[in-house]
């Protein structure tokens, strides 16, 4: 009987962010499907779980959460000693933790807005019978390229974004990167050697492979 429940849709990047974390930690959980095409996420009872009407929502016993990056942080702390450690090796070191936090903010505010728009334009729009807007793609690729230039410099000094070990900072990127690798935007990753290596590393992890199934 899993005390952990995820209310979401296995194809969305935000739900996958949470599933990835649970997989990395070998935690038992139940994925309760929220049927997006029926607008289930915009109605009760889902709205009581997340008033913003977005997947995923999360439950661990009587704790109820939403916002994928809050959920992953909860899991990483609460189950710190289980499975992969997703926090810096010395997580009590406040300065080290702050460096990881910077990376999480950068992913949320610099990387994801552009990356998600690119995934939407080039992949998800087709599902809804809409056409890709090439001007938007060009504009967002230009923004993403600048972010990836910073990443390239960063990854020349460190194996992963927050330091020498894989952390939540890297993990948060994985779902949308997996989608972008199936689009022409892939070139932005492959043409930067260290970024390319980092992408290969993080997407080949067993947990990363598992959530694609």
């Amino acid at each position, binding site marked *: 009987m899993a005390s952990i429940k995820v209310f979401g849709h296995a194809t969305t990047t935000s739900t996958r962010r949470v599933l990835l974390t649970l997989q990395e930690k070998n935690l038992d959980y139940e994925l309760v499907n929220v049927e997006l095409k029926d607008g289930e996420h915009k109605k009760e009872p889902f709205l009581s779980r997340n008033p913003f009407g977005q997947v995923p929502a999360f439950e661990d016993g009587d704790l109820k959460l939403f916002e994928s990056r809050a959920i992953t942080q909860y899991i990483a702390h609460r189950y710190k000693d289980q499975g992969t450690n997703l926090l810096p090796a010395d997580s009590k070191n406040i300065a080290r933790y702050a460096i990881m936090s*910077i990376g999480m903010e950068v992913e949320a505010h610099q990387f994801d807005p552009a990356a998600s728009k690119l995934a939407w334009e080039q992949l998800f729009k087709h599902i809804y019978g809409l056409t890709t807007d090439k001007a938007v793609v060009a504009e967002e690729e230009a923004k993403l390229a600048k972010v990836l230039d910073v990443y390239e410099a960063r990854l020349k000094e460190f194996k992963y974004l927050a330091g020498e070990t894989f952390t939540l900072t890297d993990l948060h990127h994985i779902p949308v990167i997996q989608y972008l690798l199936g689009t022409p935007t892939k070139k932005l990753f492959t043409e930067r050697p260290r970024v390319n290596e980092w992408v290969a590393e993080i997407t080949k992890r067993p947990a990363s492979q598992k959530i694609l199934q």
Partner: protein
Amino acid sequence: MRTILQGSLLPPPPIKLSHSSLLFSPSHSHSNLKFTSKSSPSPPTITMASIKVHGVPMSTATMRVLAALYEKDLDFELIPVDMRAGAHKQEPFVSLNPFGQIPALQDGDLTLFESRAITEYIADEYSEKGEKLMCPGCNKVKAITKVWLNVEGQQFDPIASKIAFERIFKGMFGMTTDPAAVQELEGKLVRVLDIYEARLSKSEFLACDCFTLADLHHLPVIHYLMGTDSKTLFESRPKVAEWVKKITARPAWAKVVDLQKQ
């Protein structure tokens, strides 16, 4: 509290304001995420403060950090960044933040950027000083705080800061407000504020019954919006109005606002 502020802000020509969605040329030289990074050349003033904030009082992201420092009664030096000259896009600033955005913070050897990572660091590192800016408690309580921290960053700020940009900052840079954009954005903001109204009917502050970073992070943009017609969106929701009044009345916040007047 010693703050050193040089010169006043002159009306700048049209430039891209440091906004969380705008990107600047990255540095190709130093990685500044190392917490033992090379320190940038020191300013010509002598100071005892180990905390330095590189930014300007007008910037919402800078204000967020200043608010946290004042709440914690910490000494710091505010080092202005000449936005008008594009200093934030060049060395030495990009060694502090390769994304070329203010603020950056130095605490001894440690260099940080992203205002919400900085405030979290301040709350953790100086947890015993001044106001507690996180809900006291175990993992579960901290998790709720993280939810509302993410709500501010992901749901509130993207909309609210665009409204502030339209109504206030555009005018400063010789551009004109787009009323259609404002209307659309306000339509989205009210949906967020309705959720806040429901939340604040159950909790005194957003994350719990004490003032935390989840509330603090809202202050700079709310401060700007309350000086515009958008204030009605906040004032017309009783719990939200009460919350706005409470958080903007905090003495630490008054100090941040004072810096703008200098």
